[in-house]
């Protein structure tokens, strides 16, 4: 695969990924460009999820390296972030200039409310799609309570509930 292809494929993923890039990334990589099979992509993405950092960003590094080594990883990453960052700079400048404008502020308030609801919906969608066993549902609920209501620091939550979730999941596999 050519570097240009990697860059352009990922540029498409970045530019069309509204509200997150996970869905469009799978579409472009598996269905449209057929870089990887469904199974291989799930494997790469799964690894990207276990590692810290943005999942699709991690997957871009791994897919880029797999096809074209270091330059491939750089090309895929650049493709993913370059155009969205430029758009974001323009939006940020617009917001700095007009964010307090009485015509713009209410619009931003409406968008912020929609974005908040969207995140809750996304979490519920992910949760229901996984169909986790009851003990893992409880782990998820504990993370929710710890994050939103107890406002515990993230390291405490991740280091406390992460190993618990892993242990419960491994235990179920053995049972």
């Amino acid at each position, binding site marked *: 695969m050519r570097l240009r292809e990697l860059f352009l494929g990922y540029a498409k993923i970045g530019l069309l990924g509204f509200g997150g890039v996970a869905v469009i990334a799978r579409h472009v990589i598996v269905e449209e460009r057929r870089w990887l099979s469904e199974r291989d992509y799930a494997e790469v993405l799964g690894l990207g999820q276990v590692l810290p950092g943005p999942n699709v960003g991690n997957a871009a590094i791994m897919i880029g390296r797999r096809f074209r080594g270091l330059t491939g990883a750089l090309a895929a990453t650049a493709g993913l972030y370059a155009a969205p960052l430029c758009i974001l700079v323009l939006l940020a400048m617009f917001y700095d200039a007009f964010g307090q404008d009485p015509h713009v502020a209410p619009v931003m308030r409406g968008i912020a409310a929609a974005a908040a609801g969207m995140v809750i919906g996304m979490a519920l969608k992910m949760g229901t799609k996984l169909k986790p066993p009851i003990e893992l549902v409880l782990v998820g609920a504990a993370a929710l309570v710890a994050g939103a209501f107890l406002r515990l620091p993230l390291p405490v939550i991740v280091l406390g*509930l992460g190993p618990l979730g892993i242990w419960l999941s491994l235990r179920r596999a053995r049972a």
Partner: protein
Amino acid sequence: MSEESDLHALVVSFLGLSLISVGGGIAVLPEMSRLVVEEHGWMSQLHFAKLFALAQAAPGPNIMVVGLIGWHVAGAGGMFAAMAAMCGPTSLLAYGFTRLQRREFPWLKRVERGLVPVAVGLIAASGLLLAEGTVREAPLVLPVVAGSFLFVWRTARSPLWVLGAGALFGALLLRP
């Protein structure tokens, strides 16, 4: 605070955040808001929610809200410093792990299955905190939060629809 110490604080904050960011960009939002709003006092909770909304309205990975925070704190340099701190070390890690074949490590799938619920819980917590910030300022937006939640949960349509509807609602009903 001087610009240099802000840059330094940005890099240190996001570097630490990136290494515990299990589950991607949105799962770390509560911690991000804790750092940005409470610890460093760079902006209010509502401003944070608005920057997040701005990042959602733009295409691209969710993690880009980090760039926007960097921009707000220290301009273009802040944007790149924050993004590099958030994505740099984890990218190196991903690069190093490329050759790992999951098939050879069947337990890795189990590990993933145990971690994802934590990530999902954290994402839900992020949504609740963002919602609290917006509803507290303007209680009228509660139906927007609820409608958007139902739309994204129950349909597979693009989230642009709810962001657009939210904008329209704001323009028509939230005018002072």
